[in-house]
């Protein structure tokens, strides 16, 4: 069962992970990544660039798309990165999220990824 773990963060929380003061948190995060790789649960992960670098595209008329700079809305937290994990249960996905150091400061969304398998009805 695959889950998308969506990391939400903001400028303040990202700063906590930077420089010397963030070394401990980064080490903790690296250790968790190493563990998830070793267990064969980590499918992929990326961090996103700053929300200010976002481009929003709307194309009600595909011939004339409307492109604007900046994120959709000013928010306290932005989608900042993700992990995709393939785990035995939702409990395990939640456990991983709870151990991800960012969740001490900002929330994380854990959401099932739709699969291609379907039961006969």
């Amino acid at each position, binding site marked *: 069962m695959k889950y998308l773990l969506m990391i939400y963060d903001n400028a303040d929380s990202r700063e906590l992970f930077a420089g010397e003061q963030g070394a401990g948190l980064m080490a903790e995060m690296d250790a968790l990544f190493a563990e998830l790789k070793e267990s*064969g649960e980590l499918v992929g992960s990326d961090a996103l660039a700053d929300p200010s670098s976002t481009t929003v595209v709307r194309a009600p008329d595909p011939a004339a798309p409307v492109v604007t700079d900046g994120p959709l809305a000013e928010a306290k937290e932005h989608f900042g990165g993700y992990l995709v994990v393939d785990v035995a249960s939702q409990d395990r996905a939640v456990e991983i999220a709870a151990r991800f150091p960012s969740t001490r400061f900002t929330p994380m969304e854990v959401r099932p990824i739709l*699969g291609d398998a379907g039961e006969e009805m």
Partner: protein
Amino acid sequence: MSPDPARGAPALEDLLRTLAPQVLGALVRRHRQFDACEDAVQEALLAAATQWPAEGVPDNPHGWLVAVGSRRLIDALRSESASRAREERLAVMDPQLAPSPDDVPTPSDDTLTLLVLCCHPSLSAPSQLALTLRAVGGLTTAEVASAFLVPETTMAQRISRAKKTIRQAGASFEPPPDDERDARIAVVRQVLYLIFNEGYTASSGAALARAELTGEAIRLARMLHALLPDDGETTALLALMLLTDARRAARTGPGGDLVPLAEQDRSRWDPAAIAEGVALVERALSTGPPGTYRLQAAIAAVHDEAATAADTDWRQIVGLYELLGRVAPSPVVTLNHAVALGELRGPRAGLALLSCLDGDERVGAGHRLAAVRAHLLERAGEPDAAREQYREAARRTSSLPERRYLDGRAAAL
């Protein structure tokens, strides 16, 4: 599996897959160290797949693979010992390092021991599935990874971790003790059934590699059945797979859309698989009190023997679900029971049975209760309530084809 060019022609691939667990069994009995032996066998299989097409299949393919596997194992242990200074262990192993090619093992006992080991209770279900497919099924890591839609590196780690976990649990390459045997073989059956379902429920074009998992699960179930011909539950497991897989061509429409049982084109069902499955069910039911696989296989047989959906013997199916609910009660059994009861006595009777699941958290999280309720409400002539339940089910499912199907039912009302 995904076509793996390294694995050559189908006949050769079949031979290698059949020999894989026997060769692994021979190596592990000689050298212990299941994890290192398992890697060595994979390398020997790869060597065979590249050399045999050019040089011809050796007279004793089993002996060839054991010899090459042993050499690879020694090489691996040597390089390990060089880096970790483990000369001592190598010296201890040396007298056993050159097995004679005509040393005949007991392949059947070994294969059963291997299956039980790969389905070790210390492993999570995903790890049991992966390890069984590689070590017993003889699939490459790339093939297992593509079947489960994860990157090869992820699957390689999962398999290597599984082997480590087994070693740390102190498991050895021995048949399980008598008092654990039945329980351990029950886990093997469950793992094979999960492999089957991974493949059977796959429906989109991108899932071809997954669909072939059903073939692999049936092959492994045949193997287990051959090892335990008098075990009724194992016989029934094979029957259940055959009777379910017989409907595969009819269960999806164009674009991978799900076609419900009642609307399937039964002329596309596989009569040979149905005949074999029905014969196996009859045999399994004569072996003692019905277990869960026997009852599920019997239900599948009743469905498969009906020429049209209207010919289905619902009385018999309801009776079988009542028994199943007593032997192995679960929300899923109750849901299926309610559908069958709805056919036999009308949708109100089905809905009444469903009400006993209200507040059951095991069902509450899933979408199936809403889907079954929607179906029964639709039949009871309550389109508004049915639409609401179809939408609820569509919101809750984690399956894309199911969501399309459920949204489609809601839209059609």
